[in-house]
């Protein structure tokens, strides 16, 4: 079977600095995979290169067998890979519902705003169905639909960002730092939601996390990144027992599992 996402020897540079130094990874449809590592390991750079925000200096990215290396973010969204960005990045002055609708609108974009609008208006019925489905999955968003997204709590904003990504009907949801700046209880709720989304809707997950415990709990497999390279990979259960991972990411052996 062709993997849903295949990254091969990806290199990302910012000028002379190398952020990602030849990373390869694979993810099958419906899988939950984590990318862990310390701050500055290159996790977000890797994710952003996959999503088309920067052009990689070398390497390949394939989505469902199609080479999308260096394609625009919009094209990658259309192929079914949508990112929930770090720090949520909601459209703060727009109502929650407008945030969600833009998730569906972006998919229609092929470089031209007016043409995209026409396509979007023609698909308005489908968009409405999708919106109802997202409200069903995240009822809180329905309550907040008229409120400017910037005036909701951090956890709610994370829901808005996830809902916006879901509006594009992704096959793979790439979540950058789900837990950043959120209370543990809120993170727990969101993590359970993502698991349900994966199990019931079959949406694959690529979770980029500094919180390794959360990543292992939610994901079946993980890649460990350090200084731009992949140093370890394997099933979460195995990595969790790995001495290196325990000392570096899970607070040594002190924590009782």
């Amino acid at each position, binding site marked *: 079977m062709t993997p849903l996402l295949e990254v091969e020897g990806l290199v990302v540079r910012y000028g002379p600095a190398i952020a990602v130094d030849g990373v390869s990874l694979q993810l099958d449809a419906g899988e939950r995979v984590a990318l862990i590592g310390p701050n500055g390991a290159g996790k977000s750079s890797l994710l952003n290169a996959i*999503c088309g925000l920067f052009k990689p200096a070398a390497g390949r990215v394939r989505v469902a067998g199609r080479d999308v290396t260096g394609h625009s973010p919009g094209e990658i*969204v259309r192929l079914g890979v949508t990112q929930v960005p770090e720090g949520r*990045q909601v*459209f703060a002055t727009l109502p929650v519902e407008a945030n969600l609708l833009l998730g569906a609108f972006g998919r229609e974009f092929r470089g031209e705003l007016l043409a*995209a609008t026409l396509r979007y208006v023609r698909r308005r019925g489908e968009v409405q169905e999708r919106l109802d489905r997202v409200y069903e999955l995240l009822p809180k968003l329905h309550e907040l639909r008229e409120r400017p997204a910037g005036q909701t709590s951090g956890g709610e904003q994370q829901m808005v960002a996830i809902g916006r990504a879901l509006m594009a009907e992704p096959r793979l949801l790439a979540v950058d730092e789900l837990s950043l700046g959120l209370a543990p209880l809120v993170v727990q709720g969101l993590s359970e939601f993502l698991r349900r989304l994966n199990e019931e809707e079959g949406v694959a997950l690529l979770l980029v996390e500094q919180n390794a415990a959360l990543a292992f709990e939610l994901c079946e497999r993980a890649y460990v990144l350090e200084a731009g390279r992949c140093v370890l990979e394997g099933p979460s259960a195995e990595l969790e027992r790995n001495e290196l991972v325990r000392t570096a990411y899970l607070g040594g052996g002190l924590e009782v599992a």
Partner: protein
Amino acid sequence: MTEFVQLVVIGLSTGSAFALVGISFALIFRTTNIVNFAQGAFAVLGGQFTVWLVDKEWPTAAAAIVAVLLVTAVGALVGLLAVGIRGLTTPLASLVITLGVAFVIQALQLLSFGDRPHTYPSISDRVWTVQGVVVQPQYVLIAAVTVVATLLLTLVLRRTIIGYALVATSDSVRAAELVGLSLRSVAVVTFAVSALLSAIAGLLLTPIQPVNYDSDVGIAINGFAAAAFGGLVSIRLAFVGGLVLGVAQQLVVGYGDAITPQARQYELAAALVIMLVLIGWRSRKETVT
């Protein structure tokens, strides 16, 4: 008292035109972070094209509509140029590009329309007199069009998917790109809409203040000042800023005449000083609250 009301009435109408240009500035800056120096040129072109077509015996309304459409197309082109190449063109480079475009447009006007001011007749020669205050229909037209255009723009930004896309880009460029919006396309539409608004302002102002190839400097400064009143981002405050500026200028001219015959020369400078004070006062209030 009658004189004061008269000056305020004239100020509100010219101020409306400044408001439209100010809103155009704010719209572009908000969505693209570009300060568009060609904004005044859009307004002047609106006036020049209208005069050119009216001189060819076109009905004024048709001339105005075609002029606005032409300037809108010019605006879209300037937008495409100003955004440049993703990742390479910085906002500062874009600003210099718009400055260059403004000079090119001046030069082209000089070549095709000459160096004399142009005008066309206002919509009506009738004059209304209300308790000694003279109101020309053109004043009312400018104010009415400005109010309607501002309301329409606000409605588009708040209620339509295109508006959401424009606002989204100003809220978070990163997220706008990630959902699939193309910044270039958003910028082109923003420039086109801004050019449309400025062209309307320019052509409505032309019967009162004839346009010349270099009138864009004054219009751009006034429009920029109006936009600065709203921190270059608020459309509502740019609207208010334009009106305040228009009234301030008329008052300086009107009452300054009594003090020195050269008052008219200080019209712009005096109004800008008033504007600076107001902006300073507003930003002080903002930091306190």
